[in-house]
Structure formats: C-alpha cells, structure tokens
C-alpha cells in the first residue's frame, strides 16, 4: 500500500515561488510526518506548519476549542489535534481530515491581530503578528484558528503567507492545478482507478440500471431505449431513456425534433397507485406535424395512461436560475457578514433582511410545486409531465423533490444518491456551468442544486423520522459541491462525462460503465487526473463521520423493497372519474386549464387529425377539471381544514407512499442554520463547556445495544457447539430488538444534544410514532409486520402489507378503547365521541 512516504512533486503544476517555498520546507516536511502525525496524500507536500494552534469548534462539533498543529500543504490546510491517534499507514488515503479545509474551498483569508482585521491576499504583507486566522469558505463554513503566544512568530507569519499564496483565488486554470495537487500523483491515480463503484446504489449509467429501477417501481409498460446510445438524438439526454413499451425506437426517433434540445418526454418515476411522472423540454412550435408524428407524440406523452395527462409548467411560479443566484449571494452575504469590515446586518433587521433575500420564498415555491405534483400522482392513473424550456434546472428540482416526498426509498442515503444520479446527473443538470468552478461563466452560475438540498432539508426538518439519511449527509453533499474534484459535478451531461473519460484513454464499455476500467496510459497524462464520483465518501470523510450520514440504528428493512406492481388496492376515493381519453390539462398557479395551444400539434394540424381535435374539444368541456382540483385539494387541505374530515378518515395511516407534504407558512420554513450559520463567528462567542464527544444517552444506548448484539453474535458463533436452543434465544431477542429500534429510529436525529437542528424535537414524530402513542399493540404491529415480510423475502406485497396492517390496527384500537374503558370504568370520554 502506498503510504505517502514518497514525495513526488510535479514542478510544472505549481507556481515557481511556491516551488521554492516547498523545497525550502522539505526538512519540515519530513520531520512533520514523523512528529505530528499528519497523514499526507501521495505526492502531497507540507509547505508550512505551526504548533500550538487552537481551532474553534462550531456548535455541531461541540463548541469550544481544540489544540493541535496546523499545516499548510499544496492541497489543503490541515489541522491535527494534539491527542489524535497515530495515523494508520496502511489505511486508504482520505483527502480531507475532519478538521481540514481544501485550498480550493477557501474563499477569503482574514487575519485578526490586536485591534485589527486584515484581508490577506497573495501579495499582501503583514505589519503585525496575527492572533487569529479565519478562513472563509465557499461552502459557507468559517474556520477559525487561534495562535498561541507560544507559537513561534515566524511560523504564524509564514503560515499566513503560505495559505494566502497557495489558496486558489477563483480563476481559470486553478481548478486543474488543484485537482492535480490532490489527485495527480501516480499513486493517487492508481488508487483511484482501483476504486470500485459502490454497488449499493443505482448509478443509472447502464440499461440494466434503468431496468432495475423500472422493476423497483413496478413500471411494467415502460422500456429502456438505447436510441440515444451515441448521443445522436439528443446531446444532453443520457444514453438510455425510458419510454412506453408500445413506442418503437423508429417511431421514437421522429419525435426528438419536436422538443427543445431533443429532450422528449421521458419516464422518471411511477407512483405505486399507477401514476407516472415524466419530464420534458418545451415543444418546438415551428415544426410541421405529420400525422404519424402526432400519433407518436401522443403515445409518448400519455405514456401508459390512456386517459389523462397533466402538464405542469415549471417556468412561471418557480425562480429562474438568475433569481436563485441572486438570492443565494444575498444569503451568503447575510450569513457570513461583510468579511472585510466584519460588520453584519443590524440585529433588529436580521429577519427582514433574511426575508428580502427571497431564498426562503424560493424553497417554498419549489416545495409547493412538488407538493402539488405529489398530490396529483397520489390520485392515481394519470401522467404528470413536468415541462421546462430546457428541462435541466427546475425540472430536476421538482421531479426529485416529488420522489423524496413520495418514495421512502429516496429518503435513504443510497436511494437519495441514486435519485441525484437519475434526475440530476443523467438528467443533465448543468452542474459544471451552474457551479462555475472556473469562474469563467458568471452568467450561467446558479446554485440550483443547493436550493434543492435546502428543500430536502426543509422536508427533513419537518419529518426527520421519515428519513434514513441525516442532516450530516446533506451537509456533506452541500460542501462537496464546492470542491472541484468530483466527476459528478464537473460535467454538464453524460456525453461530456463520456468524452472526458475517453480522452483519458478509458475503454468504452457500454454496459459495465466506463469508469471502471482505467487505461494504464492515463496516468501519463498529468493534465487530467481521473476524477472520482462524489459518492465515494471514504475519499473525503473518515468512517466515524460517514456513520453519521444515516440514522445510527440501521434503517428499518421495509424501506428497501418498494412498490412493486400496481398495487392499487386501496379503494380510492381520490380516484378520478373516467376521463375522456386523451385529455390534457395544464396545471398552473394551482388551477387546471386546457389552453388551446397546450399541445402544439393538436392546434396546428386541424386538417390532418380530426380525431384529436374532437377529443380535445370534448376534453375542454371536461368534468375532469373538478376531479383534478379535488386531488390538489388534498394539498390545499392545509389551507381549508374542514375538508379534511372527508379525506383523512379512511386513509391508512401507514401508507408509506403518502407524500410528506411540508408546511409552508412563514413560521414553518426554517433557515438551515447548521449549514449557513455554522461559521458565523458570533455564534461561537460564548462557548459551552460540554465536550464534543459527549454522546447523547439515547445514542449511546443505541450503540450499547448494537455492541451487545455484536457481542452476542460473536459469542454464539465462537462457542459453536452451543445447543441450538441457546442460540435461538439471542436471535429472537435480535428481532425484537429490531422492532424496538425501528420504533426508535425517529429518536436519533434529535439526539445530538448540541445541535440546534436536534431541537426540532417538535416536528420529530411521524406516523410510526403516532401509532406508538395509541398504544403498544398498534405501534408494534405495523412496524414488525414489514420486517417479517422482509424476511420472507417477497417484496411483492409491500404495499399490501401497508394496507393490511391498517386493518390490523383497527382491532387494536377497539381493543384499546375497550381496555381503557375497563381500566377506567367511570370514564365517559369515549361515549361522548360516538
């Protein structure tokens, strides 16, 4: 294994003066690894170090201080706490330690001296000895180091200069040299090329990936088409797209021309009640519609629902990328304050200023739109097609939000990663342009993905127990976006990614994915190191940090095997009356309409398509609009509480596909403090003495239980000749235990005592919980059932089970009220209700 002991250094990657500096520091470099336990990457050079430095810890890290040694390498600013364990030389390299900051994510360097604050640039010289070094990062972290009086003054000065000179001010070219610094060494390249893709998640790169998703969703009347295999139909669409079974590739080919960039309606997701979610770009209007074309277009659009299609236009009510960019930059300015003057918004204007960034308005509008779509899908048997001019920004946001709301699988870590892969990476969100790593395309820059993460966080904070992933995961993803190292974010579409990897000399292996095999020659090209996907978390985060990405107790098994087949067993009163086949409606501003030009071909080709004209006319007078509006009302119920009685009743409280509809009123939309305010310096002004590694009792308890389980496992296996009866005993305990922990998963997001987020104990609970509150039998029945089922291995009936456990709950309830009556014979309460 490579241990980083060999220091290879490529001169041409670095500016000459840095090279000199580096060479002059080789002594330090060699010593430091021995003495201070900084584990370098292969090829990484320590440029400077300073001893007796303290790092300010944020609330999330437990507040307070940590002393240790500060390093500046040509890739990162590293901090090694005093008593950190000796690094394991055989471990895989981790790009960034828990306390490190990559140079590329540093935005500004500020030093604080006695009574003064100075912004340090590569050319500035210091006239005082800094006491404090503050790194403002692009990901809105603010990392603060304090020098001790015992830190040698020269070290302090040199450290400041080193960082100021090596951190990379945004300019074209700096990204590449940063990538090289991190990943450019031969060893690193080899290491990366040997990495295997994580098989737990769906990467949506091959046809079989998509088929797997179709199967998972039970979307039987759809197929994977490789018509775009060579990106000939559309440059931005992925190689594989999902279209209705009944449309042949030859027919399909003719339809690309009718859509902007050739982004025809494609399948995204199927709701278990039988609705399909599609997304598409806007229509090309000035094109002649052949009769055959029209037939094909209609077939593609209606997918497998013959009757009803709702087109959701995303342009109007959602922010434009420019809006998002403006809002985000205002939010940054507000949360980080004006760095150079260290002045911030006056206290009494904080909320108003926050409001005027419109960031929360935008998250709200995305969530609202997604909620509307989720409610439509819940209605069953219709096609919802998201339409956006380019189909590469807000449709990514809305389609993935809808799935997070509706599909428990997307609320697991792997499921969520698959979702991002499906809707964003393959959906060709222009990550590269939107993030603007090179700072050469300011017009296109817009943190659309960050807005999405904020939306997910809002959902998470209102329903933490329904997520297997945690806020830590969202934060990690948020921060990774700002690190120009990941293939995930460094291209605009699959075609670009493929091109890039071909340039690297990789084999073109359509089915197994092209990243798996790295041509040995590639390492000879230093300009372009192979980039890992962001999902390879071990590159960035240590094991303990990664373990916080998911709830501490293993997720409940029923989250995994999902909807299978159209299990619309619920007698559904949401159900629409049979619609005129081919009805199309436009959903806009919460109302449905059918403008005549909604589908351009129906309008233009009056001569050729009498049939459609006719059906269209009939649809216009349709009785469907009210039906649709009723669906939406489920969402609007929030505004009209009365309507609830009718809808809330018969719903199985356990239906796992009931969308998580967020509350969107002013007081309910929170600021993601843990992300945007984690660096605010005044937030650390008073420190709390509680130590960071003080686990919350519940968490600790969960850990203990886990440990004990493992121990037991060990014990029972090691003492093999134990009679089966004895082994059976602990095992049964395990299943029991699982139940408990299942019930308890909701605990853990709130269990970290120091985090403000944890405090959202208020919205903590969820259905499982509620059940618990009704009494134990009701609570345990639904929870245990899926677990058993899972053991049975049949995933077909997941949905049914959800349903049947509802039925089960009823006897429980009856039993319950009876028992409570029995216990309290004098109570008149229940009689009142009847």
């Amino acid at each position, binding site marked *: 294994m490579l241990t980083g002991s060999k220091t290879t250094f490529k001169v041409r990657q670095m500016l000459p003066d840095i090279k000199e500096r580096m060479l002059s520091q080789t002594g330090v470099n060699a010593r430091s690894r021995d003495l201070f336990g900084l584990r370098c990457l292969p090829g990484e050079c320590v440029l400077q170090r300073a001893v007796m430095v303290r790092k300010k810890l944020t609330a999330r890290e437990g507040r307070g201080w940590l002393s240790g040694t500060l390093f500046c390498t040509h890739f990162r600013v590293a901090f090694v706490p005093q008593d950190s364990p000796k690094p394991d030389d055989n471990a895989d390299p981790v790009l960034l330690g828990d306390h490190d900051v990559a140079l590329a994510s540093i935005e500004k360097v500020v030093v604080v001296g006695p009574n003064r604050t100075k912004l340090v640039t590569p050319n500035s010289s210091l006239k005082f000895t800094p006491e404090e070094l503050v790194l403002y990062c692009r990901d809105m972290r603010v990392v603060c180091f304090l020098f001790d009086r015992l830190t040698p003054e020269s070290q302090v000065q040199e450290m400041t200069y080193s960082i100021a000179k090596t951190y990379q001010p945004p300019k074209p070219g700096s990204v590449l040299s940063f990538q090289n610094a991190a990943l450019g060494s031969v060893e690193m390249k080899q290491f990366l090329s040997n990495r295997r893709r994580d098989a737990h998640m769906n990467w949506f790169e091959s046809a079989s990936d998509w088929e797997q998703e179709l199967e998972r969703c039970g979307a039987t009347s759809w197929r994977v088409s490789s018509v775009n295999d060579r990106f000939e139909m559309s440059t931005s669409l992925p190689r594989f797209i999902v279209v209705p079974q009944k449309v042949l590739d030859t027919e399909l080919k003719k339809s690309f021309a009718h859509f902007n960039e050739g982004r025809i309606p494609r399948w995204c997701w199927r709701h278990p009640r039988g609705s399909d979610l599609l997304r598409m770009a806007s229509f090309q209007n000035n094109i002649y519609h052949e009769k055959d074309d029209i037939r094909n277009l209609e077939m593609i659009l209606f997918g497998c629902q013959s009757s009803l299609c709702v087109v959701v236009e995303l342009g109007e009510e959602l922010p434009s990328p420019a809006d998002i960019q403006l809002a985000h930059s205002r939010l940054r300015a507000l949360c980080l304050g004006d760095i150079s003057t260290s002045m911030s918004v006056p*206290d009494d204007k904080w*909320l*108003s200023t*926050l*409001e005027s960034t419109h960031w929360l308005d935008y998250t709200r509008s995305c969530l609202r739109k997604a909620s509307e779509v989720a409610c439509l899908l819940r209605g069953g048997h219709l096609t919802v097609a998201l339409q956006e001019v380019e189909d590469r920004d807000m449709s990514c946001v809305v389609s993935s939000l809808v799935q997070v709301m509706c599909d428990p699988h997307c609320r697991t870590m792997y499921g969520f990663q698959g979702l991002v892969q499906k809707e964003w990476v393959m959906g060709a969100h222009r990550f590269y342009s939107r993030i603007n790593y090179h700072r050469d395309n300011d017009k296109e820059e817009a943190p659309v993905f960050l807005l999405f993460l904020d939306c997910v966080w809002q959902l998470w904070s*209102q329903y933490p127990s*329904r997520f297997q992933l945690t806020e830590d995961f969202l934060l990690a993803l948020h921060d990774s976006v700002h690190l120009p190292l990941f293939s995930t974010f460094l291209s605009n579409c699959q075609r670009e990614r493929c091109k890039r990897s071909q340039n690297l000399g990789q084999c073109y292996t359509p089915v197994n994915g092209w990243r798996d095999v790295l041509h040995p020659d590639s390492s000879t090209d230093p300009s372009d190191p192979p980039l890992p996907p962001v999902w390879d978390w071990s590159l960035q985060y240590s094991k303990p940090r990664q373990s916080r990405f998911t709830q501490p107790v293993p997720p409940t098994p029923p989250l995994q095997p999902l909807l299978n087949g159209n299990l619309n067993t619920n007698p559904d009163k949401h159900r629409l009356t049979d619609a005129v086949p081919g009805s199309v409606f436009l959903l806009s501003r919460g109302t449905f309409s059918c403008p005549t030009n909604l589908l351009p071909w129906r309008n233009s080709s009056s001569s050729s398509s009498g049939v459609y004209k006719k059906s269209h006319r009939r649809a216009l007078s349709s009785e469907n609009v009210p039906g649709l509006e009723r669906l939406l009302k489920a969402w609007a*119920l929030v505004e009209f*509480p009365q*309507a*609830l*009685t009718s809808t809330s*009743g018969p719903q*199985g*409280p356990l*239906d796992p596909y009931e969308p998580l*509809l967020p*509350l969107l009123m*002013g*007081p309910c939309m929170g600021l993601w*403090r843990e992300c945007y305010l984690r660096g605010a310096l005044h*937030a650390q002004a*008073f420190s*709390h003495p*509680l130590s960071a590694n003080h686990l919350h*009792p*519940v968490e600790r*308890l969960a850990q*203990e*239980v886990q440990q*004990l389980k493992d121990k037991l496992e060990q*014990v029972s296996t*090691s*003492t093999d000749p134990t009679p089966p009866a*004895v082994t059976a005993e602990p095992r049964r305990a395990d299943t029991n*235990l699982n139940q*408990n922990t299942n019930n308890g998963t909701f*605990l853990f997001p*709130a269990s970290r005592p*120091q985090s*403000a987020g944890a*405090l959202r*104990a*208020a*919205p903590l609970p*969820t259905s499982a919980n509620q059940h618990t*509150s009704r*009494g*134990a*039998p009701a609570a345990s029945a639904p929870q245990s059932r899926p677990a058993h089922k899972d053991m049975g291995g049949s995933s077909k009936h997941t949905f049914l089970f959800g349903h049947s456990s509802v039925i089960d709950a009823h006897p429980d309830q009856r039993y*319950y009220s009876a028992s*409570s*009556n029995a216990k*309290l014979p004098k*109570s*008149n*309460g*229940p009689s009142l*209700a*009847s």
Partner: protein
Amino acid sequence: MEKQAGGAGAGDGAGANRKPWGSPTCGAAAGDTLDSPTGSHVEWCKQLIAATISSQISGSVQPDIGSRDIKTLPGLRYGAQVKMFQNQVPLLPGETIQTTVKDVMYICPFSGLVTGTLTVTDYKLYFISVEKDSPFILDVNLGVISRIESISVPNQGENNKGLELVCKDMRSPRFAYKMEESQPDVVEVLTKHAFPLSHSLPLFAFLYKEQFPVDGWKVYDPAAEYRRQGLPNESWTISKINSTYELCDTYPSVLVIPTNITDEDIKRVAVFRAKHRIPVLSWIHPESQATIVRCSQPLVGPSDRRCKEDERFLQIIMDANAQSHKLTIFDARQSSVAITNKGKDGGYESESFYPNVELNFLEIPNIHVMRESLRKMKDVVYPTIDEAHWHSFIDQTHWLEYIRLLLAGAAKVADKLESGKTSVVVHCSDGWDRTAQLTSLAMLMLDSYYRTLRGFQVLVEKEWISFGHKFAARVGHGDENHANSERSPLFVQFIDCVWQMTRQFPAAFEFNELFLITVLDHLYSCLFGTFLYSSEQERANQEVPAKTVSLWSYINSQPEDFTNPFYVDYENHVLYPMVSPRHLELWTSYYARWNPRMRPQVPVHQTLKDLLILRAELQRRVEELQREASSHSLSSSSDHSPTHTAGTPLHTAV
C-alpha cells in the same frame, strides 16, 4: 371514533399521519377530549389547558396498554373524574354551570361558521358544535379573557348579537347568537365570571376542589433553598427582620442579608430604596462566594441625596466576596430613563459616592414597551399569518430584540459572577419586573439546580412570586379594566427566554416545552393559586395556600408529562446562550398555536414521553442481553457490562 373526531386541522401532508391530535381549526381540542379514554380530570385539564393547543394536544396521551406496561404512568390517574353532565360539558370539581345558550354560531377565522351550544361556567366557556360529522369543541377558560366586546354581525337577521372575546393568550374567538327575552344575556354572565373581582365574586381558584397527591405549596421552602446554597455563612445571615412584612410589604418574610449590619441601618437603607426594597441576596456562587443581590432604585432624587448606610451596605456586600474588590451594579433600565427618574425622586447609584462600584445600564425598555410589542405580535400571528412578510413583520414587533436584550443582560450578570468572580447588584425602578427577569435568568444560567423540574419551580416561587412580582396587576386576574397600563407580559417574556435557552441547550433542562406552555396557560387561568396576588403578604392574608391548589401540585403529580427525555444533568456547567437574533427564534408553538395550519406533525409531549419509554425499554433490553451474555460466561462478555449503568441517567419517572 378518532377519525370522526379528527374534525378539522389534520390537513397534514403526512396523510399517513392523520390523527386528530389537533382540530385546531378553532383552537379547540375537538376530538381530543372526547377521545381521552381516561377521562380523568387531570387528563382533561391537560387538554384543556396547554391544550386546545394545536401543538400540544394529544388525544393520545392515553397511557398505554398491554405489553408496554411500564408505560402505565400512575400520574395520569391522579385527580378525580370529570363529571359529565347534560350537554356533555366536562366539569372540574367545584365548577358550576352558569348558563347555556343554544344555536350559537362560532365565527371561526379559518373555516367559517360553526353552529353549536355555548355553555358558560364559573371557570370556562365551552362551545360544542351540533354538527355530527365534524364535532368541534372550543374551550376557553375565563381567566384568559382580557375583554369582551360586542361586534356587529351582518346578515344574520334581527336580534342577533355578536361577541368577541379578546384573550390574553393571542387569540380572539368570536360568536354570534340570538337574543332571547327569557334568558339573561350571555355577555352579562360572561362578564361577571370572567372578571369576578370586578363583581365581588371570588376567583375560581378558591372554588376549585381538586385533590392532588402532591402538595405543590411545599415545593418552595426558603430556608431549605438557602441551605442548599450554603447559607447562612459567615458573611450572610437569614434574617427575620421582615417576618411581619413591616420593613417591606412586597418582600418575602425570609431575607438573606449581610451579617455585619444592624437592624437600624437596614431600616435607614429601606427608606433610601424605592418601596423599601433593600438589597438582599438572591444567589451565591458556591465557589467564589460572589453573589447576586437584588433591590430597587435608590431614592437619589434631583439633589443627589446620599445615604451613608446604603453606601456601607453595598461595601459590605462587596467585602463578603473575598475574590474581588469590585461590585457591579446592573441597572436594567435605559440610562436616559434612569436619569429622568431622578426628577421623580428616584435615580441610580453615583459611582463617585460608591467606591469601587461599577454601574452598567442594560438599556431594557419598560413594561409599556413590552406590552405594545406583544400586542403587535398578536396582529402578526392571529388570525392570519402573512406568508410573504412573516419575517419582517416579526422584526417590526421588536419582540425578539427585547428577548435578546434580556438574555444578553442576564448573560452579562452570569459572566460577571462566573468569570469575574464579582458580586452583582441588579435593580430597575422598583425591582420587581426587569430585576426578577434578570436575576432569575442569570440564576438559570449559573445553577443547574434551577434547570430541573423542581428547581425551576423553586426559582419561579422565589424570584418572582415571593419577591413580589405584581402578578395581579401585570396579568389582571379577574379584573375587567383591560386598558390598565399596569398590565404587561413580563412573565411571558421570561418564559420565552427560558424557552430560547432550552432550544440552545436541548439537553440541559429537565422540563419540556409543554411544561413552559402549561405554566403560561395557568398564569392566566386562575385555576391555581400560584400566580394570584402580588406579594407574599397578600397571599398570606388571603390564605391562598390553604384555600387554593398550587400549579405545582398538578404538575408534580405527573412529572413524566413535563419531562425532557434528553435531559442530562450539566452539573456545574454555566450556560451562556447565544443572544444574536440569528440564534433566537420566535416561539411559534406558543404564540402562533391558535393557527390551525401551525400544528406540528405530532403532539410534541407525547413524543417526548414515548422517548422516555423507549429509553427504558432499550435499557431493559440491554440488561437482558447482558444477562444473557454473562450466562454465556465468556471472558469477553464482562468488559461491556458496566457501560450503561454508569453513563446513562435514566429517568425515575418511567
């Protein structure tokens, strides 16, 4: 049964979650009271009180069943059964129905008109809808009513009258009803019982006949509390000088004062301090012996009067703390106001007359400003919430700004003691409003005892109730003069500050949010004697402890409902909350709780309770597994056994 009761409100998206915990449509506990299988009084009152709250209601506070018998919390059973009468109005022991009016329409700001029956008792107003499909209950205790107004009801025909109840807890339900000759006007009855003191009637607390197994009046014993603090000691003594309330009628009978001072001197100091509220000890630091001393403003007057005894008194206080040769006075007022007060014979200590004294103004506005701020807040949260301008409207109330000032002031006091090891004197004008806020918050930061359920009760009893915060005047119990400028939500503000701290230090407080809301609800309800009257002397004269029930009896009879499952004792930790507005939040689950759309996804306290239970269960599991492991008797199994018992404090409650 539950489904039907769901009534309005659960519009909640988690469709799966639908459960009628709130039918907050109208802030009423629609189905919930009905659901409650226990029907026990306490249960009922819980719903009614904290209650009716979208956020806290639980039709689900049902104890439990079967397998989870540890969950069976005896506390819930305390208290007598609710008597269910005609019209199914649940009554408290001692409560009597005054009038019942049929065909009343409740004008719900959220869902339109609801027709039903209105019952007025001597404790509450109880409205139940007649519509079978959406049972709806509105329950407003009369104590919470600030004023009763007639409103015009258009389009409802002749003889119709409208009625608006403007409440102290941020809501204003409205009704429309027909006048009938035969019956007394409901407004008259309401007015009589909502403002009993203005009609020579007793407050309901004196009629309330509930029996609780725990006597809350025993929670606070001044001697025991001072003993806990290590008093008396060589510098401080527990004095009986005010045992007959002669020295100061608004102070408690038991005071802690320096040892080296004569009664004559004290009397002279009393004359020099407003309302005779002399400097007395509130809290002493267990290590440094630095103290928090509270008093009222000195009567300096325009001519800069001096009082040698007062100067010496402060000197002695300073000397009692060997760690520091300074004394810091925190004057809570705005400096300009303090100066103006000189003209009214009040003023502040001049640093030139008091050697080694440092005077700080905390610049906190007066009670009238606070009242106005909360009034503005009501406009923001009730009946509608403006989505787009929510944040700027909140800014405009300045409420969070004042919360910040208070917390920052208290943090300064605490820091002075903890880091500066310096004794501190806190006063405002009279020393019973802002002073109480500051000292109690500082003590909460400094002393982990006050962060327990019991300790907090002691803190409130001590700093607020015994030291003469004028609850009667500030709240206006049973008094119809709603425009009285003496009214001000200072205690609400204090509880808000406490809530802010619980948000920032989620594991540091033993009590939960329901506890805080319950305390505030009973601040107004007049159900318990705890907050009645303005001083210890008045309460003694009225025999409050003998004739009424203490709020703490109710709470301590079922502590598990009010317990924070995350609690770990941060003993010896000083909590400095972050006071930047970035870290303060509006307490929407209190202020905006009457908005049906505000309901959280699930009743909070129920979750917390479940957490406690779950924890117990986990612990049991661990123990079982350990037993099992040890029965395997392998060497490896021994080393993990001690972990849990050592590390995890488990609540006795469960």
